[in-house]
Structures are given as C-alpha cells and as structure tokens.
C-alpha cells in the first residue's frame, strides 16, 4: 500500500524497446504540454485586462505561424508513426524455429498445451532466452492474451488462429491478463507467466509428466475422428496425403495457392469446402462444432509433425 509502482517490469528486449519509444513520447509530450501550459499562464498573466503591457505588436503574421506549426506537428507525427510501426512489424515476423505452444482461451481461463503434451491452466511456463511462439484460439468469445511485462497483447477471436511471439530474457513470474472484456469473471481470467532458466524449465517439463507429446495425441485423434480413413494411403476415398504437406504451398481448386500453415490446417478441418486442394472433390464433411479447440491444436500438431521438417512441435 505504501509503495507507488511507477514503471512496469520489462522481461524482454522488445519490452525495453517499447519502453524507449514510450519514454521518447513522454519527453515529447512533456515538452509540448510544457510549452502550451507556459504560454497559457504567461499570456494570462502578462495580458490580464488590468495590466498595461505593450499591445502594439502586429498580428499580421498569421500565415507564417500557421504553416510553421502545422508543418512542425506533421513532421513530428510522421516520425512517431514510422517508429511505432517499425516495432510493431517486428511482432508480425516470428523467428522460424520458435518453441510453439498452443493456448486456448475460454470463459474464464487460459489453457496451455506444450509440445511435449504438458498442460496447464492460467499458468504458462517458458524457458528464458528462447523464442516462443504462441498459437492462440478461443472456444467462445473474444479474449485477449496480455502479458504487461512483455508489452505484448493479442486479441483471440473465436473461429480462427492468432499468433504472437516473444523472447523473455529475465527469469521471473509475470502477470497474465485477459484484456478483452469477456463476461462475468473477466477480471479473474488470468494468472502467471513463469520464465525459467533452461535447467529449471527442463525439470519442470519432466515433473509435469506429459505421457504423450501433443503430436502423438493428435495422431490418436486422427484415427478416432476417422481422418485416417481417407487421408492415409490405402484409404477408400481419394483424399490428399498429408505427409510433408505442412509448410509447403498447396494449389487450390480455384487456382490460387496457399501455404499449409496451422491456420490453413485448422480451417480445412472446420470448413473443408472453403479451400479445396486442386484435383480433389469437395467431399470432406465439416467438423465444425464437433472438435474442441484443444483437440484441434493436437491435430494441427500432428499434421505438423509429419511435415517435411519433421515439425518443431515434435521436438
């Protein structure tokens, strides 16, 4: 109660860069508002109606002043826009071999699924100094995954995958919040992100068990939902074989080409007729409403594991 927290912890290099931009904005804001307040008070005092200050100056320099401050504001603003955008673009370029963790938001909890099959709720354990990519999905309404110490936030819109990535460089426990209003217990939809050093992280993974990797669990589901009946060799219906598909370009029946990433795999399970691979009949039934986001994550992890690189999820 007695302490006044002024500045949030910064747990990543990116967070420090955002802080630097924020600090620069603070300086600009302080200088500008300082100038405005100073002139306001200075004029208010100097030209108060009872004073006999000199008022003989000409007011005919309107244009010069107007153009001056319009241009000055414009230049400063454009500079700030570019700076802010430059950092933002960084968030859109995840490094290729990041550790991938699936996170599913639902009223009112965050469920994380690690590649090794470890699961946790309202907690996220990640290793320090390593790139981590989160694949986010929502089971119901829009949520927003927010870790202030990392200065990152991503709305999780139901019906699609969102991704975000970070590299935490400071061991510690940091708040995890839901930042998009999602109903009754919105304020309780959160917990902690724990950044651990490599050894502690390894120990933690082991202690959590994880009998089966996410990809192995996905393989089981692949059988249970009947996907293997068509998508494995020897199937009765002609359907695309999925080995080596992940991450590679897929020509579609409408002539366009998409990269088979996690979003495409997920969409193809739920709405198979939307993007049909060229040369195949649109005969696959939809699985919308039948597979939960948790299971979808496993299936995607499985398809990824049989991809050309063997999949990072399999590691």
């Amino acid at each position, binding site marked *: 109660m007695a302490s006044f*927290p002024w500045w*949030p912890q910064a747990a990543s290099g990116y967070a420090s860069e955002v802080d630097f931009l924020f600090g620069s904005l603070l300086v600009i804001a302080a200088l500008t508002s300082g100038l405005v307040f100073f002139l306001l008070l200075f004029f208010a005092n100097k030209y108060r109606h009872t004073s006999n200050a000199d008022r003989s100056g000409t007011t005919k320099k309107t244009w010069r002043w107007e153009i001056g401050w319009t241009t000055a504001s*414009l230049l400063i603003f454009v500079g700030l826009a570019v700076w802010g955008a430059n950092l933002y673009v960084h968030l859109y370029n995840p490094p290729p071999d990041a550790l991938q963790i699936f996170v599913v938001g639902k009223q009112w909890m965050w469920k994380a699924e690690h590649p090794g099959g470890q699961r946790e709720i309202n907690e996220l354990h990640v290793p320090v100094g390593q790139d981590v990519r989160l694949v986010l999905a929502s089971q119901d309404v829009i949520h927003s995954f927010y870790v202030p110490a990392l200065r990152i936030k991503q709305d999780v*819109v*139901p019906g699609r995958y969102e991704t975000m990535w970070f590299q935490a460089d400071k061991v510690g426990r940091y708040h995890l919040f839901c930042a998009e209003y999602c109903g*009754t217990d919105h304020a309780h939809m959160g917990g902690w992100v724990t950044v651990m050093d490599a050894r502690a992280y390894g120990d933690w993974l082991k202690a959590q068990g994880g009998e089966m990797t996410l990809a192995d669990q996905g393989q089981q589901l692949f059988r249970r939902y009947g996907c293997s009946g068509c998508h494995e060799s020897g199937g009765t219906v002609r359907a695309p074989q999925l080995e080596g598909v992940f991450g590679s370009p897929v020509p579609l029946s409408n002539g366009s080409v998409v990269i088979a990433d996690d979003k495409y795999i997920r969409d193809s399970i739920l709405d198979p007729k939307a993007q049909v691979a060229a040369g195949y009949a649109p005969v696959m039934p939809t699985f919308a409403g039948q597979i939960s986001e948790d299971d979808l994550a496993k299936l995607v992890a499985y398809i990824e594991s049989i991809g050309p690189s063997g999949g990072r999820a399999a590691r």
Partner: protein
Amino acid sequence: MLAPPNLSYLNAKTGIRSWLLTTDHKRIALLYFASITFFFAVGGIAATLIRFELITPGPTLGSPDFYNRLFTMHGIIMVWFFLIPSIPATMGNFMIPMMIGARDLAFPRLNLASWYFYIAGGIVTITALLLGGVDTGWTFYEPYSTFYATGYVILTVFGIFLSGFSSILTGLNFIVTTHKLRAPGMTWYRLPVFVWSTYATSLILVLATPVLAMTLIMLLVERVFHVGIFSPQLGGDPLLFQHMFWFYSHPAVYIMILPSMGVISELVPVFARKPLFGYEFVVWCSIAIAGIGFLVWGHHMFVAGQALYASLAFSFLSYLVAVPSAVKVFNWIATMHEGWIHFDAPMLYAFGFIGLFTVGGLTGLFLAALAVDVHVTDTYFVVAHFHYIMVGGAVMGYFGGLHYWWPKITGRLYPDYWARFAAILAFFGFNLTFFPQFILGYLGMPRRYQSYPPEFQVWHVLSSAGASILAVGYALPLFYFSWSILKGKRAPANPWHATGLEWTTPSPPPPANFEETPVVIRPPYQYDREGNPLMQADNG
C-alpha cells in the same frame, strides 16, 4: 443596462402543453437540457459507484456481474444520452439560429420530434437498466453480445437505436439551417466558429449514425432470431462487427469534441477581447477533423487481428487527424497574445479545456504509435486518454458554454465566485481522478476489471479520491444555477462584451429571437485595440 424585457420565450406562453408541444428551438433546447442533466446524473452515479468499487482490489460493493452492469450502464448513458447530444442539442439548438440571425431552425417540428425520439430511447434504455441491466460493455462486441451476454441486450440496443433518430434529425436540421437561414450579410466566413463546428458535427451525425443504426439492426436480428451475421459459431466474422461499430463510434468521438472546440473558440476571443487568431485555419481544421475522422476507425483494432497493412495505414491516418487538433490549440493560445484577458468562470473552463485537451491529445499520440498501443490498449491508459478528451475536453467545454450563455438563456446572472470555484475544483478533481490511470495503464492494469492485483491499489485509491472532488465540482453548478433562476440578478443583453448576434437581443430573448432580422456587417470577434467589442450587427 437594459430594462428587464417584458416578453421573452420563457413567459410568452405558459402551461405544460406550451412546453411539451413547443416548436421554439429555445424551449426545445431547455427540454434537452433538463433531460440531459438527468442522464448526466445517472451516468455520474454509475461512475461514482465504479470508483467506489475499485477502492479495494477485491469485490467491494457487489458481485462481478453487478460491476459489469455498472460500467456498461455508465458507458451507454454517458456516450449516447449525455455526450453525443450534450452541446449540439442544448447550446447548438439554442444558439445556432441566434448566432446566424434566424428566427428558428429550418424544421422546428422535426426538432421537437428529435427530442421525443431521444426521450423514447432514453426511457427504453433506462427501463432495461432498471429491469436488471446489461453486461456487454457499451461496445457490444460480438459474439459476446449475441450469444453469451445475459441481461436486456435487445431492449438496450433498441433504446440506442431510437436515440439515433434524434441524432440524425438534429444534424440534418443544423446543416439545412446553416445553409439556408443565415441573416443578410452573414457569409460563411462571418459565421462564428461555434456554428462551423456544430456544422462539422452535424455532417458526422448525418453520415455516421445510419451506419450504427444498420449495425444495431444486424445485431438485433442475430440475437433475436439466432441467425448468423457476425458470430463465428454461425459462420460470421466478428471483426466485421468491430469495423462497422467503430466506423460510427470513432467519428462519434468527434461528435463529442468538435462542438466543445467550437465553444472554446467562442470563449477565448471573447474573454481575451481580441479577434480569434487564424479564424480560417480553425474553421477548416474542424472540417478536416470531421473528414479524416471517418478514416481512422481501425486504430481501435490494432491487436484485434486486422491485417498488418490496415494497421499501418490507420496508424498513419490517426497521426494525421491529430494535426488539426494541435493547430487549434496553438491558435487559441496565439489569440491570447496581446489580448485583454478576463478571468470570468467561462474563461477558467476554457483554460481547463485547453490544458486537459492537450494532455488528452498528446496521449493520443502514444496510442497511435502501434507498438505502444499493443501494450496499452484495453488498459487504463486508454480509459484515462478518452476521459481526458471526453470529460476533460467535451464536458469542460459543455460547462464553459453553459456558464457563458446562461445569462442569455435564463436572463439571470449566477454568482461568479462560486462558478470560478467549481471550475477550479473540477479541474483539480479531474486530474487527480484520471492522471493516476495513465500510470495504472502503463503498469498493465486492464480495463473492465472488478478485481485487480493489490500492487495497483494505491493509484486506484488516489483516483477514487479525485472522483469525489470531481463530483462536487460537477454538482455545484446545479445549486448556483438553480439559485440564479430564483434570486440571480437580471442579466443585461451583453454581459461579456461579446460581438455575436445572440448578444444584440435582450436576455432572455423574445420568442422570435430578434425584433427585426439583423444585418451582419463584419466578421465575428472583432475588437478594437482597447478591447472594446465591435458587434457583428449594429443593433438597430
């Protein structure tokens, strides 16, 4: 000093029917004023309860659901039933015809109809809130509002839909009036800036409100009939809802602030007894804000999952829309240079506006910077930012205008000492309430949280303390204004030495505003070197 007028719009007719069926823009303005004051009080009570709830990190007053309904009610009432109609429907209604030398608005009966739409919408919404309220937040985000929200979503949305007709009719009336009913000699560049800015506001009202209406219709169809439009469970796109909602709701921010800027552009030259610096620039900045304001809605969605290039464009345009606002601030300050500055209550509100709007505007630059926005969007930083604009800006302007035109509207003077005290109290109360929220926001405190980590408590307590001061600052005018109606000194026609047409006619004005149609001979805000007003029309 003029003798007290015998016949004014206030006493020309009597009886409740003469008010409820009036087509006099001045009386309709008062009808609006009374109802808006009521809604401001309701929204204010909700705000007080919110600040009370947040004093402790855990639940203080009630359940999470109670809190969710509270902030939803605060938002809906304040946005649609106070801020949007606030200045246009009261002072705009009253003053636009007077400032341009007209006898009424172009369509007096539509004007009355707009008030009835407003009241109908208000009654429906208040009914929904009394029945148990609604827990969607004022933004009604999909799919929460259609398939997950509890409470009276349909009724509330219908109430807002009804009030939209009031916005459209008011805006339409102002546009046509400004075009067609100007007095002889009142050219466009002789219009007071307040008329220009309500004109720009009206353009937004007429062009943006129908989009909200359609969005709400689609929301209702989805919620009532359970068919897919926005909900992903039924194949829809929830981001489309956000795009359509903000296509209205971002321009709506300018509906709130532009009229206030117009008021400040009246106050500063009048109380500095000097022509407004850069009149044409201030005027065209209003139009530019209204225009560019339609192109920046996507800055509410930087983390919502919209395309990268959309975000880049929206960020750039958001900086662009900040330029005309900055230019206005510089022009107001330059107006004071070599003026004869008087510190009456309206001018103190104008000072408060300029200070708070500057802070609000500058923090807007933080939010337009994409990488910073990712961190602070949906936190208290945003809450603080838009309260600096809407309360520090719009409400300060509202009170400034009210104190400025009160003698004209009622024919009575209020105690200036108390008014200055209230202005200063509101200024400091406001800063104590909302400045800590900037810090909270950067620390990472999300908005719409009933419970929060205990380390944030100290700033919440400060904020709540400030809110209690602010509440006193806003409640005081209620008392001395009421007092002034009963006991205040009679106001002369032009107590502030202003130059506009509205000050050439007695206070309160006669039913037809002017004895005879004024002939305008010069631009507004003309003062000689000694600060003596040169009226826009010679009172003949």
